[in-house]
């Protein structure tokens, strides 16, 4: 199989630009990148058909090798239609993002951020278990009958050492460190 060098060079350039663009954070650039990638792939499919030949209308006098291979072109037509649909949809999404958030950037996943910042300490699973777990309220006693000292279990959260009960308080939604994270993203977005 022979390959057209011009086609190959153009394809390589399109791939390079496309990959560069989809790594951007701006949605419009990502869309342009996807379009370039789709077109580069169309050129790749075209190249698999070999050099240009005669249009594939059957005639008895023509040598079969003189025809162009019609299959890659049929494939390209299908793939152009598909990339057209995807591009239209992406434009719709970008417009919607603009209407909703007045920005063209890819947004962060807030729940993902929240999980990432949650301390490994879990108030319910990991809290210090009282020795007495009966339903009847009794003063807390150790096994030898003496009063149990104040719980002093500590956890390490984000480089700070905290009392376990304080860490439990911080874990709640709406508490200091979580709302802090939200405000950060907001100001970040507003600055752009």
């Amino acid at each position: 199989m022979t390959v057209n060098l011009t086609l190959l060079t153009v394809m390589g350039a399109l791939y390079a630009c496309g990959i560069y663009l989809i790594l951007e954070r701006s949605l419009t650039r990502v869309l342009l990148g996807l379009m370039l990638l789709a077109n580069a792939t169309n050129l790749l499919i075209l190249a698999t058909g070999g050099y240009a030949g005669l249009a594939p209308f059957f005639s008895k006098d023509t040598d079969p090798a003189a025809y162009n291979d019609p299959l890659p072109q049929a494939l390209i037509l299908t793939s152009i239609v598909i990339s057209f649909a995807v591009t239209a949809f992406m434009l719709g999404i970008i417009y919607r993002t603009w209407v909703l958030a007045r920005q063209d950037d890819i947004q962060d996943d807030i729940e993902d951020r929240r999980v990432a910042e949650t301390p490994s300490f879990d108030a319910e699973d990991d809290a210090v278990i009282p020795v007495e777990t009966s339903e009847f309220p009794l003063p807390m006693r150790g096994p030898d009958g003496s009063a149990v000292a104040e719980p002093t279990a500590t956890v390490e959260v984000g480089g700070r050492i905290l009392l376990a009960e304080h860490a439990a308080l911080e874990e709640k939604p709406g508490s200091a460190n979580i709302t802090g994270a939200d405000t950060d993203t907001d100001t970040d977005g507003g600055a752009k």
Partner: protein
Amino acid sequence: MNLASLAPLAVVLPILGAALTFVLIRHSRAQRAVSISLLSLTLLLECLLLASVWNGGTAAVNIGGWLPPWGIVLVVDQFSSLMLVVSSAVSLAVLVYATGQGMADGDQDAPVSIFHPTYLILVAGVSNAFLSGDLFNLYVGFEILLTASYVLMTLGGTGPRIRAGVTYVVVSVVSSVLFLIAIAMVYGATGTINMADLAIKLSELDQGTKTLLHVMLLVAFGIKAAVFPLSFWLPDSYPTAPAPVTAVFAGLLTKVGVYAMVRTETLLFPGDSLNTPLMVVALLTMVIGILGALAQSDIKRLLSFTLVSHIGYMVFGLAMSSVAGLAAAVFYVAHHITIQTSLFLVTGLIERRGGSSSVDRLAGLAKLSPLLALLFFVPAMNLAGIPPFSGFLGKLGLIQAGIGLGTPLAYALVIGGVLTSLLTLLAVARVWNRAFWRKAEDAEHPDPVLLAVPAPEGGATAVRLLPRTMVGSTLGLVVLGVALTVFAGPLFQVADQSAAAMLDRSAYIQAVLGDGAPVPALALSGGGK
């Protein structure tokens, strides 16, 4: 006329339904009737297809009368028809659930008018991908289902859904471009894209080219199937969609990727050249996926991570390329489609009844709604692989096959599989303990719905919160999951036969190319074990 020549109807009927429901877009009652009846008809047809190949055999249909290496061919064998039946049964249940939700909410959360046509196109794409006998038609099937899924994912166009939709669309488009590049390379190297023809022609290529094509296809399918290093898009994008949409995505879309991987591995590239990397990837998918699930407090996110993790089991079965391993993988795919979908549907119900899908805010549901507790408990235990259920049988089959293989890596995977099963149990037990067992007063931030004093006629409130159609369809899926356990014997037999047929390849190649087609000798070194 044999029954298999009706196979194209499995694609045509849903598309016809999509056209009709689109015409009926202002008549929601007629729309519901059309979509449910056409999908039921498709399911019936696919049951007939499965029955026609139940005892083995492969049938091929040439679309438009074009002969195989040139025209489009649809192939019905045990694996593809089993996948068709399971996927249609699941999508029918989800459709009923979604119409129930749409009716109960007055079409607020899920705009039903555009939902029905899009949903039916999704089903058509899934059927097309399962039936397709050539690579480009497989690509078209993927694109049909992906384009429909883009619309379903961003239904309503709220902020979080658009954010999730962007990730999903971009990742899917990139994986499709990779798949298309792989198709172009395959065509350039062999001059054909018919899979049966490729099975013959690829074996004549030199090893380097073959490996390149193999890796390209596996990476493209790996993104769609959410296999470990390529899986990060999934938990980011699935949880925000409406409950029925997430359910059908979780059940079907990744499994289409797994199906394509199975076909590539068995039909196009038999032998064990990439089995070792696949096994490593399977181990990482299982373990890292489930560790992600343990960190989540939102049930939908947790389930998305278990979804990723359990894809690892299927890749494990596939990577062994033995009859036992592949049969277990086939069984596991059927089991997992049903169970994962029913869990997502139950989560939708939990969200309605408890007002939230976060385990930090849920409590006391077992007392409020024992039926809901049962509906969650059965598939959750099934997912974790507790003995009587099909999840246990599938994992047992995989572990037996792994021990049968006997390599150190296979043993590592067996240990990883057992560990993942235990960690899955831990993850779902945590949901169970918090959302169902603990008292609402013990929760730190219970949702106000949970603390509300039940009305004197409590029944009326419960019906409004949990519409009967939604509970009914969820119950139907849970029962289907249990039925997979009860009829595991015949099902495993079919899985065994289909695995043997897939590894043998001659039935497939001869069904497509005619009886005289030369079947290449299997270049297996260790695959036949």
